[in-house]
């Protein structure tokens, strides 16, 4: 078996005396959606921050395509193909939805330092941006200033921006939070579609959605991995039932 595209070993992050992420080993494979569940404060967002490089690891390692990236800054990780979305919408509010995505796609062109050409004139970048808008259901919203979009649409834009950077690994932090039922359904379809040729890590509270799309589920409690397995294994796990699901499933 080949090594997963993104894999961690003994990953830890300490905040003072608190172990926010404690000895986590997790692997992501292309074509697989790996969901991370856990109560608030379980360390899910911290885990994403460690994988995306926003936070340095206290100890442990992260490997991407066989190379150690534990010390790589976030912009480098993005450029080698690890994209992330944010739990709290993190967009360019004064720019149009299209420009949000165009800027994201622009980060992929090596000629970013070109200073005399018109930024909006690069066809591949425009196409990537438009494609991302269409994929997330924002095709008709391209000209709208991002801050005037509805909350749900801003959440969609959040994902569109990640897609526009053409990542190989997507780390999605509660992408469905605050979306309406219709938007959730569309996003679930989109997640399934993206999963075919990407590796996804999904942090999400919407249980129905998670069990509908996940190929693997890891349950975290107090920064540690409680259980990891297929959705069926997680459903059947006594430890998970007791600690987290409370017998609800």
């Amino acid at each position, binding site marked *: 078996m080949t090594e997963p595209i993104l894999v961690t070993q003994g990953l830890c992050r300490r905040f003072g005396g608190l172990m926010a992420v404690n000895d986590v080993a997790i692997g992501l494979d292309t074509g697989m959606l790996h969901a991370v569940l856990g109560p608030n404060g379980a360390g899910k967002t911290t885990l994403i921050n460690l994988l*995306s490089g*926003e936070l340095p690891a206290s100890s442990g390692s992260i490997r991407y395509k066989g190379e150690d990236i534990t010390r790589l*800054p*976030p*912009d*480098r990780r*993005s*450029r080698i193909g690890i994209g*992330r979305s*944010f739990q709290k919408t*993190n*967009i*360019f*509010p*004064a*720019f149009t939805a299209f*420009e949000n995505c*165009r*800027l*994201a796609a*622009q*980060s*992929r*062109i090596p*000629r*970013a*330092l*070109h*200073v*005399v*050409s*018109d*930024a*909006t004139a*690069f066809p591949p970048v425009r196409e990537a941006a438009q494609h991302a808008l269409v994929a997330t259901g924002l095709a008709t919203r391209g000209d709208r200033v991002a801050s005037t979009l509805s909350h749900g649409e801003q959440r969609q834009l959040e994902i569109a*921006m990640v897609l526009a*950077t053409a990542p190989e690994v997507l780390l999605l932090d509660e992408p469905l939070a605050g979306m309406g039922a219709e938007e959730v359904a569309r996003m679930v379809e989109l997640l399934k579609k993206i999963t075919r040729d990407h590796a996804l890590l999904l942090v999400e509270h919407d249980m129905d959605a998670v069990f509908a799309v996940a190929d693997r589920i890891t349950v975290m409690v107090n920064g540690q991995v409680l259980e990891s397995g297929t959705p069926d294994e997680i459903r059947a796990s006594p430890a998970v039932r007791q600690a987290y699901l409370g017998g609800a499933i």
Partner: protein
Amino acid sequence: MMQTWSRPVKTRIVLVAVLALLAFFPFAGATFYTELVTKVMILAIFALSLDLLVGYTGLVSFGHAAYYGIGAYVLGLLTPKYEAANLWLTLPAAIALAGLAAFAVGIFVVRVKGIYFIMVTLAFAQMFYFLFHDTRLGRGSDGISMNFKPVATIGGVTPFDLGNATHVYFFVFAVLVLVFLFLRTLLRSPFGRALQGIRSNEHRMRSLGFPVYRYKLASFTIAGALAGLAGYLSALQFGFVNPELLSWHQSGNVLLMLILGGQGSLYGAAVGAFAFVALEEVYSSITTHWQLLLGATIIALVIFLPGGLASVAGRFKRELIG
């Protein structure tokens, strides 16, 4: 029937009118005003250079006069005692050295944000100030008086005379237009778009894969080089340089110009420079305590017109049309 113009067309009409006014201004007479407008246009270049940082990259520098002063001192120091320096050698040197100084300082300062950025840019500017004020290099607080204006001789031809106020006016006017066009092109480029992204949301830019530090450093360097250009022109116009050119008052004044005109707008930066000098002239003719009036005006402006003078047109239209 009312003719409706699209916004870009209107802007263009105003722009052409202003350019035409500036182009014919020296022929209207008084040398005093020709020299005053020359000074204003130099300050407009200075304000434009700072707007790249403040208005488009989100870096509020409180030490931008350092690079203005360095540009000026390059001419002062490169002008020999008994003959004139050449414009085409000293001007690029001023731009390059100011840019180099900004690059060196930028390596340290663009790592920090907000109030810390303001303080460290000020600290570095003060270091440059005292470098010229207290060492033999800058020849002390009196500065350097140049006995000769630079000559514009190139290939045996002298296309204009920098000893002539009208010629200086048109040379500065041309440089202002070039700087404006350069910045406009820059801001529309992928690089410029990235800077504006950094101003809007630096965190997201980094997570989208932009090496934010390098972009900020490049912006800081370009802004410094352009400030050096403005400083050079100032030294050229007045024929002397002194450490006050690098003082924090000067850094503050250029920030006030941006606040007056409206940061994040190239027109605003230029308008702000004009407004600042106009207010200074008017108020100082009324009272010796003119800075009090200027301060009150700026406070009123920040309260009632936070977008600066450049936002007046749009605001006026909204009030009328509703």
